[in-house]
């Protein structure tokens, strides 16, 4: 499936495995149901990721995080926004691996996904075919800054920009 990162088209080094038998796949994404079994079979050089249904509570995932290199959160529909909150919770727990949104997202959600902690978007062929990469990059840059603190990389939110402006010109704030 076509993959995007914040800069556009990306190579996918991961392979999906249907079951727990990950053999010698160097980077394997396994279903949530078989994650425990797959981790049991993990070889030293192997990295494992999981495809997570968005109905799984973060508390169930949390114990596995230290052994995962990727969490792909399923978006059953673009309109189902649970994945945004899950990504936030995973990042808050200090997870430094890749977080991937997997499903029929639309370009207008790209900036939101990046802000919530996603690194990559994995699209069905049909969605990707209708929405070429330049549309995603344009949508990513729609807003110079938004109003929520603690979401995007520092400085890209209005409140912190106002604060910086106040610090730079204390007299003008009168």
């Amino acid at each position, binding site marked *: 499936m076509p993959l995007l990162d914040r800069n556009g088209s990306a190579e996918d080094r991961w392979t999906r495995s249907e079951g727990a038998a990950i053999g010698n796949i160097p980077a394997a994404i396994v279903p949530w149901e078989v994650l425990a079994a797959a981790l049991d079979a993990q070889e030293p050089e192997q990295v494992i990721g999981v495809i997570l249904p968005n109905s799984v509570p973060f508390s169930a995932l949390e114990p596995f995080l230290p052994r995962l290199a990727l969490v792909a959160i399923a978006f059953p529909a673009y309109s189902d926004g649970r994945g945004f909150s899950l990504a936030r919770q995973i990042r808050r727990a200090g997870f430094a691996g890749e977080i991937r949104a997997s499903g029929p997202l639309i370009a207008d959600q790209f900036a939101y996904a990046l802000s919530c902690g996603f690194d990559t978007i994995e699209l069905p062929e049909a969605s990707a075919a209708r929405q070429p990469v330049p549309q995603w990059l344009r949508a990513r840059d729609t807003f110079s800054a938004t109003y929520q603190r603690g979401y*995007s990389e520092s400085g890209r939110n209005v409140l912190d920009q106002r604060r910086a402006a106040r610090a730079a010109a204390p007299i003008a704030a009168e």
Partner: protein
Amino acid sequence: MYRYDEFDERFVRERVAQFTDQVARRLDGSLTEDEFKPLRLKNGVYLQLHAYMLRIAVPYGTLNSRQLRQLALIGEKYDRGYGHFTTRQNLQFNWPKLRDVPEILGLLADVEMHCIQTSGNCIRNVTADHFAGVAQDEIEDPRPTAELIRQWSSAHPEFSYLPRKFKIAVTGAEADRAVIKAHDIGLRLRRHPDTHETCYEISVGGGLGRTPMIGKVVRDYLPKKDLLAYLEAIMRVYNLEGRRDNKYKARVKILVHEIGAEEFTRRVEAEFAQLDGPSINADPEEVARIAAYFAPPRYEALPAVSNTLEAAKASNPAFARWVEVNTVPHKVPGYTALTISLKPIGQAPGDATSEQMRRVADLAERYSFDELRVTHAQNLVLPHVRQRDLFAIWQQLGEAGLASANIGLVTDIISCPGLDYCALATARSIPIAQAIQSRFADEARQREIGPLGIKISGCINACGHHHVGHIGILGLEKRGIESYQITLGGDATENAAIGEILGPGLAAEEVPDAIERIVSVYLAARSEGESFIDNVRRIGLSPFKAAFQETTRAAA
């Protein structure tokens, strides 16, 4: 009132460009109709029965004269010369063309306005007490809070694809004029009994629609500085756990109901405890920056009673009655807050022509420090009027057909657009409102009946707030015929209550008779000075039910 800085200005311009681009991507097939729909809804564009409808945000109901004149211009240029003020303090145009929408958004941005999140499954335009800043019973002005929430909720990365729409209302007064208990989140500014600091009481899970619920308090006293982090915690719990299997069960009220207010509160508090407040909340300087825009205007020092006003009242009884009904006391001596009725007998409730908007804009500029408000009851307010100017204002309103003396009375009916406009409606609303108004047109009789709120919705979605009307009317369709269900005892204030159904549905033409009978029971049973709703509470539903059944018998 709040003014955009460079960041707000840029954000709204970028939003206009975004929507323009979205329309282009729909037209070239990049987006399917299904994918485009929520994008246009989040810009206030609905597809209605006959045309597109554009809903413009009036954040917490506050406007200046320049903005209202711009709305008048848009109404004239792109619509049919009028607009409709809604129960969420917004303005709707019923006949714009889709191709004109980007241009309209540009005109709105010119006057610091937008249509952002006036629809869709996101945090909607925030509402507040329409007497904010002027009410005598106010503890703290709710507008700075509402503006902070407006900004924070705009294009929120995490909470723009919620299970369902989400409405937040704020009040800072003892009397609730913002219907906070019927909102997904209701905020009430109040003083902590020990520290005397102003805090928020937070209610969650109120809402009307097909499953009406009164909001439950989840926090009695939240320190003001923690607001955004606490809202984030509530929204995250809802976004993750709100039902998505059935759109009729997707509002937060259902989640609160199903797991219980206590468990919901526990989950919110657990999430809140995980959050790093200082990295989320607005810093005190930012809060102060916003609050400064809502500093009181430069009032004159005036005597508490205006002799000019008293003399005009004495010589003109019609004027005196209008003053009595349409004004409320103001914090500042010599001033009053005036409500302009958009409910003249026989007109669609909440409609105003472009000409009327310009007249009100002129009056706001000349007599009310350039400020006006939209109420959830679909009227307009001039919040800071010198008492001595009331007579001149009354005369000028009269020339524009805006001097009805009926605020809070039986003809001040809240009504949704109903089947005359709305694609969701199952019955007409406006003609029912008009028929009731005609029946009770006599002003002396209206005053004799006193405060009585009738609210009409043309479908189960309850945009006309019928559940919380003293008398509520719900239009349904039964076997191809409109049928109106009457409820009694609803209350939209701090004593929030859901009305109870009186009996079987009525045909449209029977509704005025039924209202007449209900009112007769009240008039016969009331004690000295007892209002309609107090009377219903005291004597209960039975006498009203009995009278109501006579209506259905008479019709049979």
